[in-house]
């Protein structure tokens, strides 16, 4: 399952849970019970709920930050393929040369004018990764294409009149060196 689908179903589950709790409480709202007792019971449950949320938060934080999902920006690059990308209103300037599948690529992304967003899409229209293209700054996005084929770059930061038309297509080719 791709990440977007996991995020979607996790959200659906979360929304469903919140909805179920609200519907249950609403269904009970016309009945009457002693306020002090309700509050005491409810706040006992809340302590456990708090604990569960904190523990879950710590686990998710650790799991999602280790290893850190963004490559080091100031260390010397060891990527075998480096692609220079510059955003312009409203076109991408990308250094020439084939990009090979299965071998890490580093996109060095900047902008010549305003802020742009470098969004990497596959041929089915799913986003694979992104970073910002900002004037005076170079963001280094590391990515390894699993498959050869046609890919696109879409602009993901609003940059003016033709923002939606700022699209660049490129091919990723089969590596002659074989997959690592």
């Amino acid at each position, binding site marked *: 399952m791709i*990440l*977007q*689908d996991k*995020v*979607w179903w*996790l959200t659906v589950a*979360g*929304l469903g849970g*919140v*909805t179920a709790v*609200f519907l249950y*409480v609403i269904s*009970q*709202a016309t009945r*009457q*019970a002693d*306020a002090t007792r*309700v509050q005491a019971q*409810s706040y006992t449950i*809340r302590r456990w*709920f*708090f604990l569960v949320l904190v523990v879950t*938060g710590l686990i998710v*934080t650790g799991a*999602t*930050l280790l290893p*850190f*999902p*963004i*490559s080091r*920006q100031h260390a010397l690059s060891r990527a075998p393929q480096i692609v220079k990308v510059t955003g312009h*209103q409203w076109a991408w300037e990308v250094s020439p040369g084939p990009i090979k599948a299965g071998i890490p690529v580093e996109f060095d992304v900047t902008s010549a*004018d*305003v*802020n742009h*967003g470098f*969004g990497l*899409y596959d041929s089915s*229209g799913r*986003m*694979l*990764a*992104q*970073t*910002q293209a*900002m*004037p*005076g*700054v170079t*963001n*280094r996005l590391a990515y390894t294409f699993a498959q050869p084929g046609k890919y696109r770059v*879409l602009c*993901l930061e*609003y940059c*003016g*009149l*033709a*923002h*939606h*038309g700022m699209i660049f297509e490129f091919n990723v080719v089969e590596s002659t060196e074989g997959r690592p």
Partner: protein
Amino acid sequence: MSALYPDTESLTPRERNVLNLYLVSTLALFIVLMVFGLTMRLAQGTWITLSPAVFYQIMTAHGAGMVGTVGLASSAVMWFFLQKYVRLSLPIFVTNYVLFMLGAVLLLGATFIGHYGGAWTFLYPLPVHTLGVWSVGAAAVFMLGYLVIGVGFLLFYLDAMLAIIRVYGNLGRGLGLQWLFGGSIDKSHPKTVVASSMVIIVNSLGILGGAVVLVMSLVNAYASDFVLNALFAKNLIYFFGHVFINTSIYMAVIGVYELLPRYTNRPWGISRPFLWAWAASTVMVLIVYPHHLMMDFVMPRWMVITGQVVSYASGLPVFLVTAYGALTNIYRCSMRWRLPAMLLILSMFGWAAGIVPAIIDATISVNRVMHNTMWVPGHFHFYLMLGVLPMLLAFMYHLIGARGARPEHGGDRLGLAVYIVGGLTFVLMFLAGGRASEPRRYAVHFPQWIPYDRVASVAALLVILAMLLFTTRICRGLLAASPTADSRLK
């Protein structure tokens, strides 16, 4: 019935007129700005044709206008309840309104006469990098409009700050910090004062941050030698934007604290967890904004990690204190099922549910494929449309009930049902678009995204129809109330 409408909330005729001005104006603005939103979805769905230039102008007006209008309406809620406990200045409240309207005229003039389409974010250097689409003057007028609005809010907060200090000694005592680690909590300490103290501290800083970047951008517009650091400017802009919209929610939630216990017939007093939640939120709202800059990889790691961790932690006060506390207050309470109560419960649901996709998106590895997709408007429309707006509507419906108007007709409940169905469908289409990697802020959509746009258009139409009904009913209730209905000698 007297518990629903206490005498301490009656207003002088002058106060009532000013409050009416706020509420009627914000309702009218909401309708117009919703129509802007519908227009964009119709254009994306190819049911109407708009030039990209006009689309982006509408987008700019919709974004800036909605955030500002939510802020203005929420400040009316805060003013109404806070003035029960401290003495607020009516002329300053009026000044805030006048400056807001002046700022709104500047924003709309810059957008629709000057053709400014640089989005509400005025992300440096886009406003002055116009490529002939709009003039630098139009961008400057737009930013000036923000400054004027910011001055109004700052005056309002300064007045409220002085008023709280006069009664409680300082803002820390208003927040209830003296009871965080022990001591007997004064149960009569108003939640409204706690929330207002937090909002004053946080949004004064937010607005000042915004003013700094606005002034720097204005200087740059006319002195191009004065160059800004784009990353620093972006930090300031998102600090300001995040703080402003969040404190707008916190101002509106005052209405929930004040009104919900009246419809449940149950007290909902302050407690130590409540005070901890607001103290923690005061800090967290100020430091969480780097979650907007996770895809700026050159940002220091500690800042983006803070953005993720504090985003998670920010959910705790919402879930465990406000939403959970509200549910506890509702559970088996023999509820007075009136429209304000229904809207209050909806608002708690919208806020709690809306932060689920927001928190998930604040995870760096998720943000990598969700940032600046439709997922983002999906989550903020969720808690604004189904959270904050129902808070505001609940306050307004309650108010017309207090003024002797019949609080609701059968049609209102139907309107609420239509609003919920339309609102949920509308936000789910954004989230579904985000799942499909649909970028936000695109005037033209790829064919595979158009079905989401079309369903969202129909849903938006339902929301607008319901809002028209609510607006008509509330305005009639506000304006038709007898002049003596809630007046008192002060």
